[in-house]
Structures are given as structure tokens and as C-alpha cells.
């Protein structure tokens, strides 16, 4: 078996990402045939097979980043156990060997012979070779603590210190083949090769979308003076309307009728009444937007996007529901057009659909307010001094206190509440 390791593609490189396997497990490979691809910085490299044989084992999956000299796969040479000339890329361990560049082609191999004792893992630095020679040390007995089990100067020095005066190398103890690495601990014999410990943490780069969301959220926190006000809204009338129409609606339009388009419609009316919530700050000026373009936050698997319904106040509930369903489905399949995620003047986020009663959303810059819709729940409430069961929802408005004062924000919410509680449109 030949261990194929993540090659070091340059002096300062400590890890590489395996981007693509060009051969599948069980496939025959020829020596020098491209085996896998790795990526470091902005460079993609094809790594050829160091020997002919069968790709026996793939240890690192595509997309994973591993330290250099990590074993990424194993190749079983030849067919009848007879080793095919594997041409290890570093010279035999002649002490006088010149320093070897760290990244030879083909991929560096760590050969693990089945009977013959193998040399210690990883390439040896000239310094380590010299120290070993001077102290007459058998490097196979030194446990490496460097990257990929490599033997460092400190390892050799520690070994020398633990051994006391230099003596002749003892009879060679067979090095353990890699496949018995999982030997029971009480087994006598040489110390087991360093085992990769289960890491306590995992470092993973943020996706581009994640980076953008992070930047945007921090920018918004820095820009606006966020204040959130929460109003309780009785949606019983709309709940009844929805109950009555939802079957027919689903049958006629092919998507279900939710509470969200009603909230959008009410927000549109309230924004007409309080245009400062549909504005932006431009230097020392207030920029009023004459169009009401509602951003609707859509949760994705690993992120969030806010597509925009243009001129939302000109649409009825059916039109709004259609736009919401269409934008959400295209957001999830990543088919939004660039101009569908820009130009919003006010945003709505529907965290209620995930069970949240109320939350304090962050403003979508350069807007100055965002309305969060909590879950609609049947709740016992007091109506005319009697207890009644009503469909209650909390609406949370986060507003930018630079432009909007609390009283105004509450009047805006009052308007939204009044439209929703006194829903009069019999036609959607």
C-alpha cells in the first residue's frame, strides 16, 4: 500500500483543499495519471498518481481542507502483492542526501511497507538527518510531533535526552504498518504512531453570502439608532376570512393563502400615511421614496436574501401573495435577477413562520424601518369584560431613531393594526 499525501505546493503553505477526485475508489490508476485536484489560494493543481495500482481507499472527501502531508488516499500496487516500482519521490535515506524541495512531482508518497521496516513518516530536514547521524539515532524510534507526524529537531533532542549517553542503535524494531494503527493500547512493542486526535474545534471559511450578510448587519448596527416597538394585533377577522377562502384560493392559484400579504397590504397603507418610514438618510437630508417597494426577507439554507415587491401598495392580496410565493421560490432556487434584490424602501420579515412570537429585527440599510411579524396564535383575551379566544399576533417594528421618534413609530403601528383588525376588503 502506498499512502498518498496532501503535497506541499509552496514554502508558506500549511494546508490544501481537495477540490475534486479524478478517480473513484476501486479504479485502476497509472503512474503519473492525474488522481485528484487541490486548490491553494487562487491556484488549482492536478496531482498525479505516484504509482500504478488500484485506488484502494479515499480518506479525504471533496471540499475538505487538510494539513499538508495528511494521507488523502491509498493505492494498492500491482496485482499479486509484488510491489510495482513506486519510485518514491525522495531519495533513499542516505544521510548525505541534499535537502529536498518540499513538494515533488508526482505527489509525495509515504511508503508503508508490509515487512520491511519503513523510515519515519514525512520528509526529514537536513538538520534532523545530521542530528540523527551525530547521535547515532535510529529515526524509526523517534516519535514525530511535527505536521503530519514529521520528526522535528526537538523530537530528536528529546529522544537524545531521554536516552542518556549515545549508544549504538538497538536492533531495528519493525515499524508498524499503517493498517494496524488501531492496535489495542495494552499491546507491547514500540510506541504507536501519532494518532490524529479528534479536534475540539473546526475552522471553516464563511461563504460569500455569509460574509456579505455579516458585513451588512454590522454596517446597519453602526449606521442606525435601532429601537423596537411591539404591538399586539387581533387577526381574528382575517383568520376567519382566510379559513373561508384558503381551499378555493389554493385550488385557483396553486399556492396557499398566508397572513403575510395582509400584513404587506396594511403596511403599504400605513407607509402612505407615514411616508417618513419609507425614506432614507442621505447625509444631512431625508430622501423620501415615492414608490413603496417592500423587501420580503426569505430564509435560505445557509443565509438570507431580501427580494423586493415593487409598488407593493398597488397590489391587492392576491397579487401580493403571488409575488411573495414567486420571489421566495426563486430565491431558494437562486434564480432571482439582480434588480429583484435591490431598491427596497421598507422591509418585512416573517419570523412567525418559524414559531417566534416576537423578535427585534435589524434594519435593512439604507432603509429606516423593518416590520417583524410574529406567529399568529389563538389566545384568551378580554373583550368587553369577557374572556374570548382570538387569533393574536405581535408585530415588532424596528425603526431608526435618527429619523423616526417613538410616538410616530407607534402611530404607524396603530395604523397597521387598525387596517388588519378592521379588514373590510371582501375581495382579495
Amino acid at each position, binding site marked *: 500500500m502506498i499512502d498518498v499525501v496532501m503535497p506541499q*505546493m*509552496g*514554502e*508558506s*503553505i500549511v494546508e490544501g483543499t481537495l*477540490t*475534486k477526485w479524478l478517480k473513484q475508489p476501486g479504479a485502476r490508476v497509472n503512474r503519473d495519471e*492525474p488522481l485528484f*485536484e487541490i*486548490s*491553494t*489560494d*487562487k*491556484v*488549482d*493543481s*492536478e496531482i*498525479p498518481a505516484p504509482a500504478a495500482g488500484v485506488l484502494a481507499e479515499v480518506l479525504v472527501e471533496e471540499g475538505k481542507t487538510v494539513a499538508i502531508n495528511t494521507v488523502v488516499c491509498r493505492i494498492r500496487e500491482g496485482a499479486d502483492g509484488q510491489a510495482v516500482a513506486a519510485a518514491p519521490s525522495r531519495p533513499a535515506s542516505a544521510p548525505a542526501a541534499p535537502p529536498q*524541495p*518540499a*513538494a*515533488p*512531482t508526482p505527489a509525495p508518497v509515504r511508503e508503508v511497507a508490509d515487512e520491511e521496516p519503513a523510515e519515519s513518516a514525512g520528509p526529514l530536514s537536513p538538520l534532523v538527518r545530521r542530528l540523527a547521524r551525530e547521535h547515532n539515532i535510529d529515526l524509526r524510534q523517534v516519535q514525530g510531533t511535527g505536521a503530519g507526524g514529521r520528526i522535528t529537531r526537538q523530537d530528536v533532542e528529546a529522544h537524545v535526552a531521554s536516552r542518556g549517553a549515545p549508544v549504538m542503535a538497538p536492533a531495528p524494531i519493525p515499524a508498524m504498518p499503517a493498517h494496524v494503527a488501531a492496535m489495542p493500547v495494552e499491546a507491547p512493542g514500540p510506541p504507536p504512531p501519532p494518532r490524529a486526535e479528534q479536534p475540539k474545534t473546526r475552522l471553516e471559511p464563511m*461563504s*460569500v*453570502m455569509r*460574509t*456579505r450578510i455579516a*458585513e451588512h448587519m454590522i454596517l446597519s448596527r453602526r449606521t442606525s439608532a435601532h429601537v423596537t416597538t411591539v404591538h399586539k394585533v387581533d387577526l381574528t377577522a382575517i383568520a376567519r376570512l382566510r379559513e373561508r377562502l384558503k381551499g378555493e384560493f389554493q385550488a385557483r392559484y396553486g399556492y396557499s393563502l398566508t397572513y403575510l400579504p395582509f400584513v404587506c397590504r396594511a403596511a403599504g397603507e400605513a407607509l402612505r400615511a407615514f411616508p417618513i418610514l419609507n425614506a432614507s438618510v442621505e447625509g444631512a437630508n431625508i430622501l423620501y421614496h415615492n414608490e413603496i417597494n417592500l423587501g420580503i426577507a426569505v430564509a435560505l439554507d445557509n443565509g438570507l436574501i431580501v427580494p423586493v415587491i415593487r409598488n407593493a401598495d398597488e397590489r391587492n392580496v392576491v397579487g401580493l401573495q403571488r409575488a411573495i410565493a414567486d420571489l421566495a421560490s426563486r430565491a431558494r432556487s*437562486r*434564480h432571482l*435577477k*439582480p434588480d429583484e434584490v435591490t431598491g427596497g424602501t421598507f422591509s418585512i420579515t416573517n419570523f412567525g413562520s418559524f414559531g417566534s412570537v416576537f423578535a427585534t429585527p435589524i434594519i435593512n440599510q439604507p432603509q429606516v424601518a423593518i416590520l417583524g411579524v410574529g406567529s399568529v396564535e389563538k389566545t384568551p383575551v378580554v373583550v368587553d369584560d369577557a374572556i374570548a379566544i382570538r387569533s393574536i399576533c405581535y408585530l415588532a417594528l424596528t425603526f431608526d431613531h435618527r429619523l423616526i421618534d417613538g410616538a410616530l413609530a407607534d402611530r404607524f403601528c396603530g395604523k397597521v393594526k387598525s387596517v388588519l383588525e378592521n379588514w373590510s376588503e371582501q375581495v382579495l
Partner: protein
Amino acid sequence: MPSCEVRYMGRIEYDRARAFEQALVEQRKQGSIPDQLLLLEHPPVVTMGRNGRRENLLADEQMLARAGVDFHHADRGGDVTFHGHGQLVGYPILDLREWKRDVVAYVRALEEVLIGTLGAFGIAAGRLHGSTGVWVGDAKIAAIGVHLSRWVTSHGFALNVHTDLQYFRYIVPCGLPRPVTSMQALGSRARLEEVAGVLVEHFREVFGRRMAWRENND
């Protein structure tokens, strides 16, 4: 001093240029030709690298086609990028075993060539830590994406000389939400050939190659 042949190929379609480059890469791997530097300009094309994410392409292929922009997948590092008229594209085909076996050093050297070239035109460009490419302020002026096979390089760099930057609205260049710029946008009136001439001088200095201009005879 090892030599490097320079071929100025003018305007050439992405497909054709890549096929020509690939043929030279094979010859270079066999050692039958010295290092090469191809300099050229592509008609508008968006290319997606191996690590490219579809989300960084902001238009679908039909929209691109309507705008007269081609679309290709490319076997290079890096994310999505745009090439078009007024952009100096360089494809160095070097055997790094005869230079340094170090891909990071290679990418940094390409950046150095580009920074030196821009400096000669009075533009103070630099690196942005953690983001390969060449930057003026926080705007990207040159992109880098490289492929390596047996230490022989292909693909390379793209420097915006007088590129129409409007095209970049179709993509998130290299997957980074940062602006792009060009020499022209920064007030330079340099032409592509002029920039190519200066770049070859900086290439010679940084890579220590004797640059031999060749007529292009593909």
C-alpha cells in the same frame, strides 16, 4: 538566464485562446519549448473557476447572451470573472520547477509584475491581505486565477486597462463584494499594446527570464 517567449495575440475568442494555450502547455510539459507568455484580449466572456459559486453569477446565461457575453467554465482557481475588450489578459506557461516550486510565490510574483506595471503608469496599486489580485484602494484592477499541472502553469491574470466596467454588474467578481476599477477609470489613457510592452519588462525582472518576442503563428 532561461528564456521566455512572448506572443501578443490581439483579440481572440476565449475558446480558441484556451485551445492554443493548452497545446503550448503540453509542449512545455514535454520540455520541447521554453516558458511562454501569451498576451491577448478576449471578446466579452464570463468564466467560472473550479471553486466558483453560482450565486456569484448575477445573471443567467440567457441574460448574458442577450448582452453579447459568452459564458464558460474554466479549470482554474478562483471564482467567477469577466473578460472583455480593453482588458489585458496574460497566460504565462511556466515550468515552476525551473523557477520556484511554490504556487503562492508564483501568485505573489504575478501580483508584483502587475503592481510594477501599474506603477509605471502612475497608478499606485497594491495587494489586499487575504485577497489575491491587485487592488487600487479597495477596488480590484487585476484578477488572478491559475491552474497547475505537473508544475506547469496555465491561465493567469487579467488587467483592466480600459475595460467597460458596466459588464461587471453581471457578476460578483471573484466572489468578493468589492468594486472593480480600470486604468482608464483612474485617469490613464494607456492603450493595451503599450501596457503589454511595459508588463513584459516587469515580467522579465520579476521572473528573471530573457523575454523573446515571437510572431504568433498558431
